[in-house]
């Protein structure tokens, strides 16, 4: 018997790691992976709540999150490839043409 809050704390830790990765890392692909990490954390909390309320809808939602994550990963990586072609770098600090 594991208290629900433990699952939520684990989910929170995963999410925080994801955010920190987004803030700290410089490689755009690594940043994307941090995003995936964040999504996974959220998925875990969904399933945990679904288990508490004995509801299957939580799982369905996780499905959809996964689908969207997949689509987003595909398109995002395509964009990264396109940006790499012009900027010749994967360093996110050097893609700052929108600077004021």
């Amino acid at each position, binding site marked *: 018997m594991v208290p629900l809050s433990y699952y939520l704390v684990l989910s929170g830790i995963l999410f925080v790691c994801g*955010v920190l990765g*987004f*803030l700290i890392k*410089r490689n755009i692909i690594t940043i994307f992976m941090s995003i995936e990490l964040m999504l996974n954390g959220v998925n875990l909390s969904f399933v945990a709540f679904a288990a508490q309320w004995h509801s299957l809808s939580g799982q369905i939602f996780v499905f959809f999150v996964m689908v969207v994550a997949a689509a987003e990963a595909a398109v995002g990586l395509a964009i990264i490839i396109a940006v790499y072609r012009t900027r010749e770098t994967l360093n*996110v*600090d050097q893609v700052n043409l*929108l*600077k*004021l």
Partner: protein
Amino acid sequence: MTPPTSNPLLWLIPILPLAGAAINGFFGRQSSKKAISAIALTFCGAAFLLALWIAIGFSSASAPYSFPLAHWLRSGSFSVDFDFYLDQLSLVMMLVVTGVGFLIHIYSVGYMWDDESYYRFMAYLNLFMFFMLTLVLAKNYLMMFIGWEGVGLASYLLIGFWFTKDSAASAGKKAFIVNRIGDFGFLIALFLLIQHFGTLDFPALFAKIQPISPETTGAGLLTAIGLLLMVGACGKSAQIPLYVWLPDAMEGPTPVSALIHAATMVTAGVYMVARSHMIFERAPSALTVVAIIGTLTALFTATIGIAQTDIKKVLAYSTVSQLGYMFMACGVGAFSAGIFHLMTHAFFKGLLFLAAGSVIHGVGGEQDMRKMGGLRLYMPWTFTVMGIATLAIAGIPPLAGFWSKDEILAQAFSVSWVYWLIGVVTAFITSFYMFRLMYMTFGGDYRGAGAQASHAAHKSHGHGKDDAHGHGEPHESPWVMLGPLVVLAILSVFGGFVGLGNRFEHFLDPVFKAAVEPGLQEPIREAGEKSTEYLLMAISVSVAALGWLLAHLLYSSRPQLPARIAEKLGGLYKAVANKYYVDELYAALFVRPLIDGSTTILWKGIDQGVIDAAVNDSADAARHISDEARHMQSGNLRSYAGWVAAGGALVIAYMVWMGIR
């Protein structure tokens, strides 16, 4: 009080010159000079004829006349309308203004013919007539004030007529500003009248004031009003301490000096004081102040006139001095004597100025008397009429000036011999400097340069000094200028006879004596004092003759004496010649601090420091803020993420806090 009779022609008298001014003002630029003159003379002459017509049909029984023109102000219980009013006093003033004004219009046709802004001059002259007539024919103080301000405006426009000349523009400004100081006093007096009596209408107001007993304790409402009105009169009629604008006003063309600064505008103050006699009679201290100011001004400016070398400046100081006489008369309660002198003064002073203009025109623009002389041979007519005017102003019988001046001196004597003595001394000085003017201008040999004068006139042709001919030798003026001179000379000779047997005073009695109560300060004319009167008359005639003799001595028989006397007197002579440095004193006391204060406090301190700074600094602040804020838009993905994380933390904190509450 009997209600005034209606006279439907009254309103036309001021309006006709206004129409002339409007037509000449708007259409004059493209009209021919003949058309302009015709318009100006017609409208002014029509006003004069109308005034004559009304005067002929005037009967004291049905006076005063009035005519309501239009509604104006309604504010609660206070109301003021455009009403015109004619009683004996305003009849006299109206005739003087229209008559002398018309003569001067005719004179100006000849004098200003060659000026390039001829139409503007005639338009301004007509405009002045309109305002002066409004002032004189007004039925309430507020309409009088319109005329008051309007003549100040016309004076400014006409003094600075040749506005391209710096001195003329400054003189116009000075006149207007000094006038304004007086107007301030006038306005406060009006406010006090409105506050305490609720009306400014002459019949209604004076009916309310009549039952008030005189304020013998020296302080009180009527004294305050009287003093404030006197401040206004000092400004308009150039008394101490606000006389400084009138000598400078000689920058204007000579007809302007004649009309405005001799005959009519400067007399507005005297008229106003006479009109307010009911207030002054109940405020003895104010009346005394009027008398003192008038007397002192008369003496003071007469002394300045001794040392002046510009012919117009002598006449200007003479005007101020004679105005002092009029105020002295009003100050001792002899209002009708003051008005009498006003009328005769209009004749001979107007004549003096016009003749001076003829002289200046004849010698090609020269105004310095030291460069004149011997002109009696070149300009006999001018010499004659100017001589008549000089005799009149000196008070030689039986010319007009003698009757009016003697009347004033007699009335002054019956109040206090001090006034009389100063008046006599001033009469002596007046006679002296007027005959000095005559001898320097017409006597001896011509000291001017003749042919050189013509070159000088050619050089000054462009900026429009008084004359533009420069024919070389001095010459007589054309008849269009001499005609009015002759008419005025005749009036100066015979005009005084209306005062014979106190006819003039009795004519004005319904105005001044209608509400006299026993115990008020009134000129006491004891019945059995005729011998005193004759004695006083003799004294004034003899001092006039003395003045003439002295002038003859110094400027005709021994012309080297004046220079020696001036040397001997040294500093005193310099002070008098420099007008006692009054202008410099005012500049240091008032003008300089005002300008400096305005520059440092108002301009640099408030306008630049506060208002401009507020606008500029707020713009700067906006720029600085946006300068800082734009650093947020760095194009860097991670900083955006940082901001999002911070914001997210804030939202979470807020939600937790709400949850705890």
